[in-house]
């Protein structure tokens, strides 16, 4: 490693000039849309509870402002510092994941996922995704190899497995799936033989069946995961979310019912609408045109992320960007796919749009990292 901590280079002062405006604008548009969607999803039920209709939207706007600060802060120092402290951050995230299981963590609806801090809920699982990406990128970039050995693949898998397992037992199946997907994405970019990926897949299958056999996966999780295959089987429980989400999106039609005009949205028929099912607001109120526009914005973010991975001056930056791209991609596909009824229902938020501080700030930090790699792409 040729980086000496604390030493500054003259070129660094000009880095701000090389910020990626396309990525910044796409992310800001998505985040702004998110605030509006959160308002639409929550204002009516807040009014019936005699609360400020803008309560959630204002909080989300606060997260947006905080997120900008976080992204700028993270972009401001050379990302190679991340490589230096990756182990520390990764270790700290694992500690938090363990601590959240202790009485320090709050239990909400059967899951122990959050720390209650100053009126906000902090979900360490969100932070752990980014920490894991950094650790993985640091580890793989140090191998200095074009092709990974099976041993390397196993080591990389171990890095992902630790947070994945801790998240899985919360239980938060969705984030565990995201972590596993990030691992696969980064491994592909780092050069894993298809044969080794096959071994990994086999191991995953054994693991899944093993956990089913041992009863590690709760019944409701299986129900939710499989209900998308047959929503009519139990329309009032697991299939209900999916059915109502599809009705909301379908009734949007080509151009939507108009902002704040969606009946499914306003009358509370879609559960978890401001968080996991926020895409249904877009679908119902802005129709096919609106939904496609949002998907396009995500495509722009992903395009820029892959581009940054390609432009990075070092493998660490490449893996970092590829990991972040994988994280965004899998979250968008699983989240949107779930609202459309073609993916299992798992509690994965839609990046930038879903209500929630931990998720938003993690995504902001990820954008900060991408910008960082982009700004410092010149050797």
């Amino acid at each position, binding site marked *: 490693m040729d980086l000496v901590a604390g030493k500054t280079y003259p070129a660094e002062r000009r880095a701000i000039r090389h910020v990626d405006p396309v990525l910044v604008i796409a992310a800001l548009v998505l985040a702004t849309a998110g605030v509006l969607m959160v308002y639409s999803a929550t204002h009516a039920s807040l009014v019936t509870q005699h609360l400020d209709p803008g309560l959630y939207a204002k909080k989300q706007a606060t997260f947006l402002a905080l997120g900008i600060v976080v992204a700028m802060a993270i972009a401001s120092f050379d990302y190679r510092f991340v490589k230096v402290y990756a182990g520390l951050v990764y270790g700290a995230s694992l500690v938090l994941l363990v601590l959240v299981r202790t009485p320090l963590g709050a239990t909400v609806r059967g899951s122990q996922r959050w720390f209650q801090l100053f009126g906000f809920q902090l979900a360490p699982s969100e932070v752990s995704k980014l920490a894991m990406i950094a650790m993985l990128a640091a580890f793989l970039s140090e191998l200095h190899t074009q092709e990974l050995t099976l041993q390397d693949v196993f080591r990389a898998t171990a890095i992902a497995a630790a947070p994945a397992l801790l998240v899985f037992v919360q239980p938060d199946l969705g984030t565990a799936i995201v972590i596993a997907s990030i691992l696969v994405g980064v491994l592909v970019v780092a050069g894993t033989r298809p044969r080794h990926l096959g071994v990994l897949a086999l191991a995953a299958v054994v693991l899944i069946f093993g956990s089913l056999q041992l009863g590690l996966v709760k019944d409701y999780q299986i129900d939710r995961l499989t209900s998308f295959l047959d929503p009519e089987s139990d329309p009032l429980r697991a299939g209900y979310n999916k059915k109502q989400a*599809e009705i909301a*999106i379908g009734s949007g039609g080509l151009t939507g019912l108009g902002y704040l005009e969606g009946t499914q949205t306003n009358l509370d028929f879609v559960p978890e609408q401001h968080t996991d099912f926020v895409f249904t607001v877009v679908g119902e109120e802005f129709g096919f045109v609106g939904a496609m526009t949002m998907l396009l914005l995500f495509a722009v973010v992903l395009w820029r992320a892959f581009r940054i991975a390609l432009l990075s001056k070092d493998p660490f930056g490449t893996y970092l960007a590829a990991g972040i*791209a994988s994280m965004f991609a899998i979250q968008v596909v699983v989240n949107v796919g779930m609202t459309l009824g073609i993916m299992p229902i798992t509690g994965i938020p839609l990046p930038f749009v879903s209500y929630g501080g931990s998720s938003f700030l993690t995504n902001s930090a990820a954008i900060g990292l991408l910008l960082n790699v982009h700004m410092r792409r010149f050797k």
Partner: protein
Amino acid sequence: MTEGRTEPRLKLLAGLVAFMFAALTTRLWFLQVLTSAEAREKARNNYVHLVESAAPRGRIIDDQGNVLVENRTTLVVTVNRQEAGDGLESDIYTLSKLLGISAEEIARRVESPLYYENSPVPVASHVSKKVAFYIGEHQGELPGVTVARVPVRTYPQGSLAAHVLGYLGQVSPDQLQDPAFEAYEPGDRVGKTGVEAEYEHFLRGTDGVTKYRVNSAGEILEQLSERPPEPGDDLVLTLSSDIQGLAEESLQVGLEHARRTIDPTRNKPYMANAGAVVVLDPTTGAIKALASSPSYDPTFFVRPHTSEQYEQMFGAATGYPLLNRAIQGQYPPGSTYKPFVLLSALRRGIADTSAYYPCPPFWEVPEDPLHESFDNWSKTDWGSISLSRALFDSCDTVFYPIGYQYWRIYYPPTSPPKEPLQEDLKKMGFGSATNVDIPYEKAGRVPTPEWKAEWHRNDPENYPSGKWFPGDFINMSIGQGDTLVTPLQIAQAFATIMNNGRECVPHIAQRIQKASGEMVMRIRDHCGRRVPFTHTQLEYVRNALAQVPIQGTAASAFRGFPFSQVWIAGKTGTAQVTGWQDYSWFAAMASAEGKEYVVVALVEQGGHGSMTAAPIVRRVVEGLYGLPMSGFLSGGATD
């Protein structure tokens, strides 16, 4: 980029992501463009909640303005399965304890396939106010359970005219398929019999519907639209409660009298198990009374009942009280048929009013090698008598040769067959329904050679011969054999004789009016069809029949009747039914003070016509004209 092979790997990953985005886009297109209309419909069903308010059914009123049927409200507990959702099981448990009905029974009612998933299913009616109040107060614990105020029928005059009025029941699955019942939903109540069924579409009214916008919790946010219920129209009958009461009472008196009278042929009292009385205005066809016994309490159908209860109430043990014997009972007319046979014989030149005919105790079929013999009801040889006396004394042996003459016309059979007797009887209205405005009327039967052949083909076991014999005509001439009539057909035919050959279709409805009294529709009289007999022939028969109560077969039953005040003519009938005691008939025409009536009485297993039916008719006629009641003067064992 430092390592050259990273680029294709990144592109592979990006390609994978692009592929997944393409899948999302396809699905979006499917949901939002191809199947959007269905989703919008579902979204509408989500937030629009319909609350129906039942329209009060129209009342049924007699010709004096007395109410026969009106409404009262009852409290009905309903369960909406969709709204109950997961709470259905606890709903059933709570309701079971509250209503004292087993949980299995409630579950069975709730799961009724007659109702849509999202419509309220009635599980208990006539619940107490206390139960209704409890349910109202505990809505949180009883999701989807509501108490509805539902109008039900009430009968201020009890079981009076029960058969005419009819009763309500749940609309049947067959009716729901019928376009005429398009506006009906499963569980709706509909007239099943009587005028309730005949005038269903006037009486029903239109249910009100209020549309509300609700949220996912089922809370009402606003009212979207409201259509108030429109009450059904009132039905005014030609029937008069006083006359109906008189007819029912007289029938009852007659039945009880017959049950105390010994049947000499069997040496036991008459069963007199059932009977019917018809009172008709011959000038219009308006039915003033239509009594049928045994009767029933119509309030039975207001409450839910099991099929066992139904069987117990209305089965063989109670003599099938739902049967309206005045229009659904089919009986051999016996001698009440003779006036019509005579009219045909006069028309066809078979009989002559100026001639005299022998009336021996028995008569043998000529040219019959077996010398088959047909008896008169009397063992006395009356010598030669006029046709008029043959009618008022009901001489069978005068009518047998008349019947035989029709055999001579018929045989050998031609194509088309010559059947003038059947033709004339059908012209009098026999063998087909009168088309009275009460459903499920029976047609009776005028037997013909073709009919007999067909019955033999269809059921050779019970009808061993399909051949038409002289005996068929001979039996028909005295209203026996395979001939069947309903009491209403006899009444209509006598009305036609009284009306000088002008036939009126009997009807029981007079008009339909709004609750305010505003006229909706007048039910017109259907008179005018003429029967093919001359005024002279009809007058001859009328005059002959006028002698029946004076010096004929009903003279003993009409002892002391004020013939100078009320003109009355009639005919007795004693119908023989194989295996049963004789059926007693009397049909009468009466006229006084410009008011005309035809009164017909039939008593199953009631003995001779003059014994049971004639005194019933006399009692009714006395009541109709306000004459002093003579008591029940049972006549002798005449025909």
